[in-house]
């Protein structure tokens, strides 16, 4: 079963991951990725905007593609929107599987596709000014790995 959540308030990744792991005692391994707002880049705040009618359905669709591609016991996708301060978690992906390779590949793939396909628009505040972040070529390269 997949859990997909789009949150507008801060979340505790350690608690999310502990609950996810406890729910999958039959899995030998759990791989997680946590993305957080970096401290020390001069970024004062990060804002992610989403478009409700598209963003959550697309995340659920991604989850079901990941489940179809690897043999998983569980999959968790949690994504923030709204304004976040440095150090705050942005995204948590976790995959529980019997086999380690499946869990690694599923989490990796889910992150690559969340980053490049998801309906989030991002702006950063630095020096008191908000600036929209444009797409990065790196994301398209990451996607291309999966053929």
């Amino acid at each position, binding site marked *: 079963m997949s859990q997909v959540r789009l949150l507008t308030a801060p979340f505790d990744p350690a608690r999310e991951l502990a609950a996810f792991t406890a729910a999958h005692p039959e899995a030998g391994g759990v791989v997680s990725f946590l993305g957080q707002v970096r401290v020390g880049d001069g970024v004062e705040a990060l804002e992610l*905007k989403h*478009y409700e*009618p598209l963003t959550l359905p697309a995340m659920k669709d991604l989850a079901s593609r990941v489940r179809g591609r690897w043999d998983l016991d569980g999959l968790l996708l949690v994504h923030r929107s709204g304004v976040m301060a440095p150090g705050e978690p942005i995204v948590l992906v976790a995959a529980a599987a019997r086999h380690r390779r499946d869990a690694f590949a599923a989490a990796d793939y889910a992150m690559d596709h969340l*980053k490049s396909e998801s309906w989030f*628009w991002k702006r950063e505040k630095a020096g008191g000014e908000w600036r*929209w*972040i444009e*797409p990065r070529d790196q*994301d398209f390269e990451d996607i291309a790995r999966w053929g």
Partner: protein
Amino acid sequence: MALTLVFLGRLEDVAGGGSRAIPLASSIDAVLGALEPELASALRGARVKLAVNGILLQDTDAPVLKDGDEIAFLPPVSGG
């Protein structure tokens, strides 16, 4: 008799707000034609996608709009 336009990402800055109500117009072209030229030009950008009531349009779609429809203008997502 109105439509709602939703502007995502940097289009919000061009439009001066995240959304706007406009009088009903029957087509996307008619909607764009009634907007400020600078905004209309940004919304016509090659990489801007459109969704009507949460359904993404294909390039060749030319939907007939009706009262209450929500049209979202979606620039490329930010990634990274």
